[in-house]
């Protein structure tokens, strides 16, 4: 491919084709959204079952395992994909900074609430931040299921503040499904269609 003389139509055609090719490169965000969406939904559901029905103590005691398991799987997947990826799609940094910011905020909030503060504040902040990240990444990348999930998650996070204890966990689980798990599954399906 090397020709110095080109017509304007040919130039425009090359630009169009190349941009379409670049747009087929997808972000790897779907994996993390599905992984953390599924793990956190499970985590909040077992809390809800425990608080609502007063059962499932053994499962509840194992709940903390979702965080190291999620961390390990995320680290393993990042290592695996970094080794083979030859491009960095344009929205990768948006996902990285939005969700990285969420993780940082949650780390700080969890430190503070574990020392002093009510537990439900942490659940509220967690869902609010998750929903905000889904809203921002969905809006910037024009992925509307994530945008809509973000709005629904923000509404559900507000419900945490006005509902009684067992339902905090149910609102959190529902919020994680709409703001994280569902957009992740839809993004995965959209990526598959792009490559088909």
């Amino acid at each position, binding site marked *: 491919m090397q020709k110095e003389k*080109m017509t304007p139509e040919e130039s425009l055609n090359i630009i169009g084709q190349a941009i379409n*090719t670049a747009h087929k490169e997808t972000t790897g965000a779907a994996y993390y959204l599905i992984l953390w969406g599924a793990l956190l939904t499970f985590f909040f559901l077992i809390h809800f079952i425990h608080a609502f029905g007063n059962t499932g103590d053994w499962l509840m005691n194992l709940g903390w395992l979702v965080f190291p398991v999620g961390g390990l799987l995320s680290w393993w997947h990042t290592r695996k994909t970094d080794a083979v990826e030859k491009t960095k799609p344009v929205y990768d940094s948006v996902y990285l900074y939005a969700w990285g910011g969420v993780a940082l905020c949650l780390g700080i909030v969890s430190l503070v609430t574990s020392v002093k503060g009510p537990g439900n504040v942490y659940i509220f902040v967690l869902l609010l931040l998750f929903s905000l990240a889904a809203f921002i990444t969905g809006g910037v990348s024009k992925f509307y299921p994530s945008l809509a999930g973000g709005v629904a998650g923000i509404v559900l996070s507000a419900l945490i503040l006005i509902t009684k204890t067992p339902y905090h966990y149910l609102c959190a689980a529902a919020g994680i499904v709409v703001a994280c798990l569902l957009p992740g599954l839809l993004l995965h399906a959209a990526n598959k269609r792009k490559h088909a």
Partner: protein
Amino acid sequence: MLKDLDPILHSQLRLAVMSLLLGLEEAEFVYLKQQTGASAGNLSLQLEKLSNAGYISIKKGHKNKYPVTICRITRTGIRAMEAYTRAIKEYLKL
């Protein structure tokens, strides 16, 4: 009077590389070679021309113990592409 087209961009391979990089944050040399179908030598030469014009930045490093070349479009490159597409539109009266 119609504007002169930027001679750095008015070449099939360089234009294809710039358009690919416009839609990505960064791309490896191997990816650009695959997508454009150019030979490694020719692509290297054209990337150097784009880099000398300040349109792209080239970073060389290692990945899995293998050498890797990563290309990124610069702000100057983005502005040059915008000016180029404007000029093309004028030619085509779009």
